[in-house]
């Protein structure tokens, strides 16, 4: 599995993602600048967290219009894997690769703390190394993580098994149906707000997020 990590101005979590990929994949990810348009040779495109383009207009709105995202759309249409975390999730919804949108946290506060996530299914390329229903710890750091979609979309996501993770302990940002992450219909695009890449080494205080990257490495 060859991974590329997208870099937009204002993205600040790409190094954490490099560490997670290096550790699980045993290979060096390619850093892809937002003006690049050639993703040839990549199996997995990762969009890390941060504040792309200063969160101007809406979180992820500017990044969604950048040249590299056209290439990511093509990559996804070819059946390529895409992982978006935090701002990366917002960019994927703004691009339309994932349904719904992320609103300001219901309590208006920026949330920087650990949360507990429940794995809804473990038969995907992202979660094979977790158990179904497993609860794991993941740090979150976002101001706009309040997942929303219309009722019909939420029903469809649940009915088709496209909810990836739910907040298990407390739904602090007010997300609809406690949804923390969602899949595309082909289960190859995943977006989530919390940061599994920030718990992949005992030195970070835990390895709860490592199975996600180990799952991808084994795919």
């Amino acid at each position, binding site marked *: 599995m060859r991974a590329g990590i997208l870099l937009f101005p204002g993205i600040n979590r790409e190094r954490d993602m490099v560490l997670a990929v290096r550790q699980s994949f045993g290979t060096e990810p390619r850093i892809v600048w937002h003006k690049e348009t050639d993703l040839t040779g990549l199996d997995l495109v990762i969009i890390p967290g941060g504040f792309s383009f200063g969160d101007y207009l809406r979180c992820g709105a500017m990044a969604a219009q950048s040249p590299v995202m056209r290439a990511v759309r093509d990559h996804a249409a070819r059946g390529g894997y895409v992982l978006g975390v935090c701002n990366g999730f917002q960019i994927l919804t703004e691009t339309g690769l994932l349904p719904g*949108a992320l609103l300001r946290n219901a309590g208006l506060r920026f949330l920087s703390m650990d949360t507990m996530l429940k794995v809804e299914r473990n038969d995907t390329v992202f979660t094979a190394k977790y158990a179904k229903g497993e609860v794991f710890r993941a740090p979150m750091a976002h101001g706009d993580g309040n997942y929303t*979609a219309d009722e019909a979309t939420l029903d469809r996501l649940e009915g088709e098994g496209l909810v990836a993770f739910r907040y298990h302990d407390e739904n602090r940002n007010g997300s609809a149906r406690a949804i923390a992450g969602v899949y595309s219909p082909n289960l190859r695009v995943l977006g989530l707000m919390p940061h599994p890449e920030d718990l992949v080494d005992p030195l970070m205080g835990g390895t709860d997020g490592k199975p996600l990257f180990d799952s991808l490495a084994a795919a």
Partner: protein
Amino acid sequence: MKAIVTVMLKAGVLDPQGKAIGHALNNLGFAQVGEVRAGKIIELELAETDPAAAKAAAEEMAKKLLANMVIESFKVEIAA
């Protein structure tokens, strides 16, 4: 020609910012304030002379970028 695009969260979408503004106004003694909704206004200077064409262009821009149609609605006004 100037187009003024007003972007608001759709009715029914929780607007925590509007809520917070409402609370703050209540705290300031404006007891008559009920629901508050916050949005944004984007002014576009367009190289257009035909108001209908300017409006159509601004609407296209709103759909493609200025508003997220999943959560927001917009309205376009053309200033004389």
